[in-house]
């Protein structure tokens, strides 16, 4: 019985993380804030629900498999996030107007997509700003 309670609580905790991530995704003002907030939280949430499953079955084989899943998530999700964030930056996805600082601005060289630490202020590093909103509906 206790185990089931623990399972339920871990599960709800995980679900809550995921829900928070979703709310964040919806509410955050720009892409980068959304990314900061969400997929990671959701990953964590998913990990917790997985953990709940491991506790629920409490069988070494299943536990090991759950751990494998969690590790796989930890290995892959940040890479994906990094890739999409970087791509978005190239794409000129704008930062929220309330953003306080942008150290990255002007550091990507557009010709070969290299990130140069001491970039000069030159058109070579100017990424055109994308437009907010697109023609998704019409």
């Amino acid at each position: 019985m206790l185990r089931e309670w623990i399972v339920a609580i871990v599960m709800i905790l995980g679900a809550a993380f995921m829900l928070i991530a979703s709310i964040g995704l919806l509410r955050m003002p720009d892409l980068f804030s959304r990314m900061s907030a969400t997929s990671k939280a959701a990953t964590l949430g998913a990990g917790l629900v997985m953990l709940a499953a491991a506790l629920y079955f409490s069988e070494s084989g299943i536990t090991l498999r759950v751990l494998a899943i969690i590790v796989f998530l930890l290995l892959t999700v940040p890479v994906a996030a990094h890739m999409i964030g970087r791509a978005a930056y190239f794409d000129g996805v704008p930062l929220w107007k309330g953003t306080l600082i942008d150290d990255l601005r002007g550091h990507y060289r557009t010709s070969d997509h290299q990130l140069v630490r001491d970039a000069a202020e030159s058109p070579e590093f100017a990424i055109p700003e994308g437009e907010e909103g697109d023609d998704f509906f019409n």
Partner: protein
Amino acid sequence: MDIVLPTAILLLLILSGFAPFIQQAQPHRAGLLMAVLPAGLFLTLLGRLSAVLAGQVFTYQLAWAEALGVRFSLYLDGLGLLFSLLILGIGALVLIYGGSYLHGHHQLGRFYAFILLFMAAMLGVVVSNNALTLFVFWELTSISSFLLIGFDHEKEGSRFAALQALLVTGGGGLAMLAGLVLLGQIGGTYEISQLNQMADILRASPLFLPAFLLILAGALTKSAQYPFHFWLPGAMAAPTPVSAYLHSATMVKAGVYLLARLSPIFSATPEWQTLVTGFGLATFLAGALLAIGQVDLKKLLAYTTVASLGTMVMLLGWGSDLAIKAAMLYLFSHALYKGALFLVAGAVDHETGTRDVSKLSGLRRAMPRTALAAGLAALSMAGLPPALGFIAKEVMYETTLAAQPVSGWLTAGALIGNALLVAVSGLVGLKPFFGAAGQTPRHPHPAPLSLDLPPLLLAGLGLLGGLLPMTLAAPLVQASAQAVLIQPLKVKLALWHGLNPMLALSTLTLALGIGLYVGWQPVWGFTARLRWLGRFGPAHAYQVGLENLRRFAAWLTYRLQNGYLRFYLMTIILTTVALAGLAYLRSTNGLILRNDWGAINFYEVVLGVLIILAALTITRTRSRLATIAIMGIVGYGLALIYLLYGAPDLAMIQFAIETLTVILFVLVVYRLPKFTRLTSPPARLADFLVAMTGGLLMTLLTLIVTARPVVPHISEYFLQNALPLANGRNVVNVILVDFRGFDTLGEITVLALAGIGVYALIRLTIGRRQVIIPPAEEE
């Protein structure tokens, strides 16, 4: 079994195949050499005349396609013999004549081949006992005549005429085929000799009349009966020997032959008498009227041929013993003089370069032999004694006078027609040869003997036939008439019948004819002004019909095969929905749906609704990549449903495939242009509604099917035996690699092909064109 008939046909076919080579080897004598075969066959068959007269019938049978009623079954009786002799005899002459007429023509070899092919086919028609074999040869005559009419194929007129003849006779032939098959199915046999014996049984069938009408259509078109007569004058585009052979002496008489051949079955019916006689009379008048006004020798002869064919059909339609006798006699005499006159016309054309009768005169000095042949043939055509034509005309009048209750009409008609024949024979046989020499494109020389001998022979035979009717004409006429009537008939022919109404009519005919001949120019001139009437004629109808058919075909094809994928899909969807709906509603009262939908949970609702929303969103999006992303939602949603309902393998594949599809799409899509809205809102609405009928159909089917009780499934076997027999716990996988591994074998083949396809498609693009790809900018 008589081997001569099939051998004759076979030999002619073989010779036809070798004709071009013989022509190459012996360019000067080929025609003469090849004429030996038909001449020999002519003599062979002539030798059978007495036996046939005595009622003997020569038959030959060979199994062909019995299951389809086609038996290679031949049959030589009096009717067949008369026709065979004409075909072979005139054929031999035409071969000789043609070799000279077309001397030096580079396609002379083909000419021989086609004439011989035609000869074989025609011989086949008249000796076939099996209705379907007859049809086989019948169609062969159409094809060989098509090739012959289009001999001067580089002229558009020739091609037009060839096609016209082919379509008209071919169309009739098809109707005839249906009629023959009907007849065969009613009678249970396709052997004409047997069918001829069971007229009463056949007539009892409700299908008898349709069969008759269909066969009649075949006969009428082939024999150029009104309103199908128009192809015959057109066919004069063929070289003159062809016209002489096909369009006067033989092929056009195939219809007459068929009517004669089948008259034992049909002739006792009122429909036969009305229709056949009626068509004959109409054709006769039409031919006569159309002949007036023609100045081209061949056209003139062609229209009189139409008229004569009408006469024969009319006589056959009347069907009395006398009428049959008249018909056979008329047929025989017509073949002789018309063949001769065509050949004469050819010789004149050959030597002078024109066939315009108004320009021809005084040729007797330059072409005496030709003039002689022309005069003799004209004598017969005009029905003057002592030619055979005279006797034929007398017998014809005898028939019309006896034809109660319409003897007045028939006789009057015959009178007019015969008078016209007198006039035309004057125009063809006298006018070009007498009087002062006219101006012609070529200076006339005597025609070579090979051009003159054949018409002389034919015309001379016509004269001799009149002089010795009982020796030369009566046996053939008797034999054929007996065959038509399937009863013995004694035929007596004499030049002098004494003073009788027929003779009076003949005199009247001659008077009228001479009057017409003398005053031909004003009459011709007057009719020339009536040419516009032709616009309402069948020839024009054919042309307009063909043009409209072409136009309709183009219009319809453009409408259907319009290139719009949207239209194609709509058609498919609506067809499916209509057929499926029709099928379901046909045998069920309303829809049987399920009322127990099974338990449902909120998270399932969320999944379902999300999938629906995602799908609907796709219709509204203009961003390609967003579409892919949303497709992902649909895919993931479905995967979760699969998982939930016990299909983890499916869910796994679905997840994996979704990911790969995204990669694939992304690799492809940045080479594709962005979406643009191209369709108008009403069209989109229409599309959506059509698509919805498809969707609705599937929804309803799902509900109907799931409302049914569960039947025993073969899967039970898989669930029970996967582990014990196939050593696997994952039943789905065991099905995939073992129980139904064969499906998977095909499946990986498809995959392999897809791989090769993508590779080949990208690496090998022959029609490559550089396209400036606009940067994707929709997001």
